[in-house]
């Protein structure tokens, strides 16, 4: 039996760095692979685990005696996965193939933890990019990322020299965001709508209530340097392609697998597997991102902040949790932090900045396996505090602001 700690630690082993006025508290630790998280209106924290702990894949922490420590633990759901969210009286959680939901009663207790309803099942899971992250709009719909089980839709995946397929057949049932109604149960892929396409793996997904639109962060392709050293040297291959942040409307195409975003040229560059040379542009009909971040940092979660606790500058801006890179090797790894993008009216109003840093416990990170924590999930509490999860050591931090 693993030892679980749910009490707040006074002296965290890895202190995270925050802007002036902000403080953090560890509210959970040692839960293993904590992926996405959700906080209910009563303050309950839900964690979706990608590896079962004592046979369970969802943990709820509750501060029963209201002393500021979430000492009460409820575990349920015997499946692993990433996605979790609370919407209109239900807790939603995903495996890599399905979306489940659990009814909440008036006391915000799970009515039947062992018998969830199935909202959608049979979603594509070919292991690679299989995490099903979710969000909800204001009109009763749920949105799910179905990642492409591929690097860049080559005839032979990740095979040096293998050409890209046109059209890419993967886009039929993956490589995009699908929309489903929350009013129906037992749906299959065909019951949903392919809301947007051309996304390799949109692991960060959230609804911007200010402008009523979907926003996503996408993991860019791997192996530009390794497979095309004549076009991309080691440093360029570490910086490119950009990790991307998009505003997405129904029917939009973000261009994968044909192009990648290049934040140095600010262009959609044709991928070499499709005849690109590092300069040629492609996918003229694809939309451009709002922000292109340095490569491979792995934006695992997105939170459009509409809370009232943080200073005005943060209102309607975006927090993005970067898991931290692996394929910048042999260059130092990058990421392992939470970034903030200031925004108003749905568009960035300034440069992105690192908001919460120090999760890796070292700088620079040369050996990924030594990184202490890797930010993976984000959510906001009812008081406007922001929570960050870690799927390396299973921690959750609560970040608060005091004037």
């Amino acid at each position, binding site marked *: 039996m*693993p*030892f679980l700690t749910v009490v707040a630690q006074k002296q965290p082993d890895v202190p995270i760095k925050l802007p002036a006025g902000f403080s953090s508290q560890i509210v959970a630790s*040692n839960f*293993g*692979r904590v992926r996405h998280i959700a906080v209910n209106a009563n303050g309950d924290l839900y964690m979706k685990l*990608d*590896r*079962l*702990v*004592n046979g369970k894949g969802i943990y709820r922490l509750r501060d029963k005696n209201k002393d500021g420590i979430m000492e009460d633990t409820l575990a349920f759901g*015997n*499946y*692993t996965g990433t996605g979790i969210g609370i919407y209109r009286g239900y807790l939603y959680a995903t*495996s890599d*193939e*399905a979306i*489940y939901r659990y009814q909440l009663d008036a006391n915000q207790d799970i009515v039947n933890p062992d*018998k*969830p309803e*199935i909202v959608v*099942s049979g979603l594509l899971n070919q*292991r*690679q*990019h*299989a995490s099903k992250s979710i969000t909800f709009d204001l009109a009763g719909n749920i949105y799910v990322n179905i990642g492409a089980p591929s690097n860049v839709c080559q005839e*032979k*995946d*990740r*095979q*040096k*020299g293998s050409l890209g397929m046109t059209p890419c057949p993967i886009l039929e049932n993956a490589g995009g965001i699908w929309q489903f109604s929350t009013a129906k149960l*037992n749906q299959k892929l065909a019951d949903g709508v392919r809301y947007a396409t051309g996304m390799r793996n949109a692991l960060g997904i959230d609804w911007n209530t200010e402008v009523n639109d979907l926003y996503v962060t996408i993991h860019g392709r*791997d*192996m530009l340097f*390794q497979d095309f050293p004549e076009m991309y040297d080691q440093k360029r291959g570490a910086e490119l392609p950009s990790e991307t942040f998009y505003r997405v409307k129904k029917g939009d195409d973000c261009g994968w697998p044909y192009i990648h975003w290049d934040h140095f040229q600010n262009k959609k560059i044709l991928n070499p597997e499709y005849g690109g040379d590092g300069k040629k542009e492609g996918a003229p009909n694809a939309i451009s991102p709002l922000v292109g971040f340095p490569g491979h940092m792995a934006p695992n979660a997105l939170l459009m902040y509409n809370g009232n606790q943080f200073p005005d500058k943060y209102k309607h801006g975006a927090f993005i949790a970067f898991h931290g890179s*692996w*394929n910048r*090797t*042999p260059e130092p790894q990058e990421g392992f932090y939470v970034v903030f993008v200031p925004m108003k009216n749905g568009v960035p109003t300034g440069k992105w900045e690192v908001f919460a840093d120090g999760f890796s416990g070292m700088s620079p990170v*040369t*050996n*990924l*396996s030594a990184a202490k924590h890797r930010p993976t999930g984000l959510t906001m509490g009812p008081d406007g505090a922001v929570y960050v999860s870690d*799927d*390396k*050591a299973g921690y959750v931090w609560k970040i608060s602001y005091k004037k």
Partner: protein
Amino acid sequence: MENILQEIAYMKQLNIVLFCLIAAHCSLKAQVKSASKSIKPAGTQSKQTIDSRQMGNGKKVYDLYCQACHQADGNGVPRLNPPLSGTVYVNGSKTRLIDIVLKGLNTPLEINGEEYENPMAAHDFLTDQQIADVLTFVRNSFGNKSGPVTIAEVKKQRAKK
């Protein structure tokens, strides 16, 4: 509820692994040995001496084709790319190991109690010499001490294709 039961059965089939709190610490902490030093095999697995030049050439192949995924310390990437240290896939059967390099690998596989998502591409474009060198390097780095792989062994496996 039938669907859930089916899914549970499916997950069991996939061998979803039990939680291991210390997994991250299980992997060996050995560093890449300097290519210029000759590695003296200890232990009982191999009595053969390892050619330091072969180790050096193997490291060059490793840095170019393997390091991005398996990392400089051979510890891989959690959830994505498996470690090369202390696993039976590296230190066990040489024919299986040579086959993984030649044909790639994209089946659910549990390695030291963990599963990994990313497929490995076939590396049959490497020469017999390069494969022998890199596998000799991998089998004698990162804490592994499992003896060399010869060009003849690679040639024989490639001919079986």
